[in-house]
């Protein structure tokens, strides 16, 4: 199996090229881009992200952590008299706990999502970059096609790619 990398210098050229290639039955493995290309996901068949479900779980975790933590600190372990507020029952004190619960929920959700995203993309700090060409982190866009995924021979594919406006074609 060989991998074919077609490089473009414009995101809309790539998007339209991908549309015409998919219409001809070419399966596109992936696209590398310095920024998200609006509308590329359904064209190359990227599935809907499940990050939102993770976010919800992280949020629930954060909320529970905050509430359990404050119950232990402020009610169970050492009730504190702050401005004469009731401190023997959790429900009497709950308005004072809401802002912190909110903050911890947001903290856990945001960090959880960011870390999940980096892990899933294998782009945590220190990991070796997997993009085929460093120029895709600057101003170029690369489309990856696996030869095992397509029916046509490579020469036809390369000419098809050139017809869509690819400026450079590499094989690996």
């Amino acid at each position: 199996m060989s991998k074919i990398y077609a490089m473009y210098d414009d995101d809309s050229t790539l998007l339209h090229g991908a549309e015409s290639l998919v219409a001809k039955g070419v399966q596109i493995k992936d696209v590398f881009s310095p920024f998200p290309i609006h509308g590329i996901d359904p064209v190359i068949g990227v599935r809907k992200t499940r990050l939102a479900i993770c976010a919800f779980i992280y949020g629930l975790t954060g909320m529970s952590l905050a509430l359990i933590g404050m119950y232990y600190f402020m009610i169970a372990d050492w009730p504190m008299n702050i401005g004469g507020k009731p401190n023997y029952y959790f429900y009497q004190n709950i308005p004072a706990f809401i802002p912190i619960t909110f903050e911890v929920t947001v903290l856990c959700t945001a960090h959880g999502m960011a870390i999940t995203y980096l892990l899933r993309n294998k782009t945590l700090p220190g990991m070796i970059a997997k993009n085929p060409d460093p120029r895709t982190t600057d101003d170029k866009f690369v489309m990856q096609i696996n030869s095992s995924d397509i029916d046509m021979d490579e020469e036809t594919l390369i000419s098809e790619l050139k017809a869509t406006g690819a400026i450079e074609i590499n094989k690996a």
Partner: protein
Amino acid sequence: MDYVFSDKTKKITLGVGIAGLLIFILGVLFDSNAYDTLVNEGHNYGSSNRIWVALLTNGIFFFFIALAVLFFLALQYAAEVSWSVVFKRVYESILSALPLMASIVVLIIVIGQFGGHHIYHWQHYDTSLQPGQEGYDHLLDHKAFFFNPAFYYPVLLFFMGAFVWFSRYYRKQSLLEDQEGGTKIHFKNFAKSALFLVIFGYGSSVISWQLIMSIDTHWFSTLFGWYVFSGMWLEGMVYALMLILYLKGKGLLQQASGGHVHDMGKWVFALSFLWTYMFFSQFMLIWYADIPEEITYFQARINDYPVIYWMIFFTNFAVPMLFLMDADAKKNKNVLILVGCIVFVFHWLDVFIMTSPGSMKAEAGLGLIEIGSFLLFLGVFTFIVLRSLASRPLMVKNHPYLEEGKAIHHH
């Protein structure tokens, strides 16, 4: 394709209004405590307060819907938004009811000034009283400048007049743009919107103090203007969304197919959180500080109306959060209608709980008078809106962002 206000729809909207009027009259005749004279803490709360409060509550609620849509329309111009251009005529049709609603609210306040009712305590306070004299009220004396009719009414009329003027201006300019084309009118609207947003920024707060906060005359809260504003914005968006879904159900607004309704759903979802945030921020700070003059507002509500009060909070928070969190739910017509109706009713209750306990203490009720007047206003308001919607093309022409707005498609 344009909207046609059919005879059947006319009959339904007017029927709702007339049914509301009949229920209201029945309530006035038979609801026992409507004429009770309430004497509480030495202050006479008047004999027919409940009727006036019901009218004021609905006047304010529906005025807020129109005002919020006016604000939203100005925001769309000022922020140069394209997705909402396809709904512009829907927003403008809601604006057509603003002058009437503003007049009703002002009229009710003026009637109170001449002794017709006793909703606003400050209207009947003798400002010439000196400390130590019988009936002297330190807080009212302190606020005498704000409640001086020579200050209060010009300010009220200035803001109401500005809102009415801008609502008519946008409606006029929109038709003019259809005929003339070009970008000149658009940029004029853009500049006017920047001016309007400044006026609205002050006006929405001041109006909320004048119309609502002054009912609990002794009380003050710096966050109240924002609390009212977040509620009215949500009410306006919900009403506009319901109207859009109605039109789409008739096969109209075909241009708004690429996630435009989804965007409206997002607004309802997001503004529910804004409202909850404001509600809780105001409550928590006052609960924490526990200063006598600040907690009166919450005492009157939490002690006498605990079920309604907390139901408003939890329903308006939990229902949009749980039902509209998923992206697919915000595109689903049935979910949006269900959530929209619940939120609409519970935000009406929110306005009810702002106006009623302050003017009637524990004697307020939710009966025929309140339900009847709500239906009366709903029917008349919707009739005006639909008549205005049918009187002009449903889709704008020549708006510079129209093509961009139609082409929007969310993935």
